[in-house]
């Protein structure tokens, strides 16, 4: 089991969700986040007062994936979230030690 954590452009969320659903993955956690990478921020001007906005709005998706599906899931996210422009985001994959479904007490891959 791996935790696939993807930071993507907000308007790409629906395409990514659809791509992951097509792989048979059930469920994900989505958070509205702010941050910056190479895209840096932007400037806002109010009556001549300029403010540098360093943190841009992004969406963070977290989904725990069975080992055999990890590569497919990563590929699906890349395909769905890519625009080719700076600021498309990043994907991190980290190992998960244990999973428990609270309602039934099932564990690990059967709990996904």
């Amino acid at each position, binding site marked *: 089991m791996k935790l696939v954590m993807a930071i993507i452009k907000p308007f790409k969320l629906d395409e990514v969700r659809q791509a992951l659903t097509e792989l048979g993955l059930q469920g994900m956690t989505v958070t509205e986040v702010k941050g910056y990478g190479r895209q840096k921020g932007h400037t806002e001007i109010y*009556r001549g007062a300029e403010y540098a906005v360093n943190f841009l709005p992004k969406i963070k998706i977290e989904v725990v994936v069975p080992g055999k599906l990890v590569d497919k899931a990563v590929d699906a996210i890349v395909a769905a979230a890519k625009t080719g422009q700076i600021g498309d985001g990043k994907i991190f994959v980290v190992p998960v030690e244990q999973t428990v479904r609270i309602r039934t007490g099932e564990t690990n891959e059967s709990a996904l």
Partner: protein
Amino acid sequence: MVTLTKYLIGAVAALAALALFHIDPALAQEAAAAAETTPPAPTLDTGDTAWMLTSTAIVLLMTIPGLALFYGGMVRKKNVLSLVMQCFAITCLITLVWFVAGYSLAFTDGGSLNSYIGGMSKALLKGVEKESLTLTIPESVFFTFQATFAIITPVLIVGAFVDRMKFSALLLFMALWSLIVYAPITHWVWGGGFLANAGVLDFAGGTVVHINAGIAGLVCAIFLGKRYGYGTENMAPHNLVYSVIGASLLWVGWFGFNAGSAVGANSSAGMAMAVTQIATATAALAWMFTEWLVHKKPSILGIISGAVAGLVAITPAAGFVGPVGALWIGLAAGVICFFASTTIKKALGYDDSLDVFGIHAVGGIVGAILTGVFALEAIGGKPGLLEGNAGQVLTQIWGITATIAWCAIATFVILIIVNILVGVRVSQAVEVEGLDINLHGEVVQ
């Protein structure tokens, strides 16, 4: 003199109407006979009264929620409740101040001091009965209409010192300011004081309301100092949609402000309404296009700021200029107020947070001077520079100078007194965390 003339015209018109329609020939004859011996009694006009009741209500709407939303959207989220609270509390406080003494000081005869201040004969509205008239409307309506002007003027000042004034200091300052600055200057211009006698033209309050509030705002901004983090922290408006709703309510309410200042449902009110619409739209576009050229983008804050600048500038001119004059006044206000609120403010370094000086004082001065240029005899009975009366411009400048001088000095002295009594500024910790939670115990999530 203007008051007396209107009084006579109203009485004559009422008599003429009676004679024309032969409603009661005996009564008409009786009235005519009375007119020969004693001055004719003023008569209530229901059309005028209906319009002034309406105007009063929509001018109140300019302050709550108009200005509260316009300003509220521009502050940071941690201070929005304190801002709205200030607008609402001042509305209540000044209503009472105006009732207790303000109205009397502004609109009664001050005896030997009448050039500078009225008297206390109508304190607590003494002698204002149900049937009392001002021109052709009940005095109760005139009092309330003027109360809404007395309310909006101090609320305008709030924009200069948002995010940092103590609430207790604010209440004390506003009550004193209303009595010491607003009431006398209103008396000078509209109550028969020395500026009225000098022939200063101010139809709806370019001098009394806007220059006055703008100068007081600048003095407050300098006295209180900059917001903590000004120039380094992000102080972007938290919700400009509120500001757009507020500016739109201001625009609508301003018809009551300007057309209502005709104190009647008549052709003067009609023309005041038309020139208000023209000047406002022109100034909004002028600001927007100037900003588009200078900052590369036309902003929503820009277009609404331009609209307010246009509303301010046409205020003194509304009953005196024609549509073409309104166009030029709007254009000048939009461009000049843009530079006053951006380039000039930045160069001078004061933190007039929501540009009370840049829009209201500068817009008011532009409007007051241009009233002297574009005034048409056929509209307000007074010719301006374009009709050969160059002296009117000098008279206007005299009105502006007197207002600025008294307002600046008195505002400064009041601030010193309030600072000694309760302290004007909140602590840095309160300012950083926000006024809402610290002063009012509430927050917007």
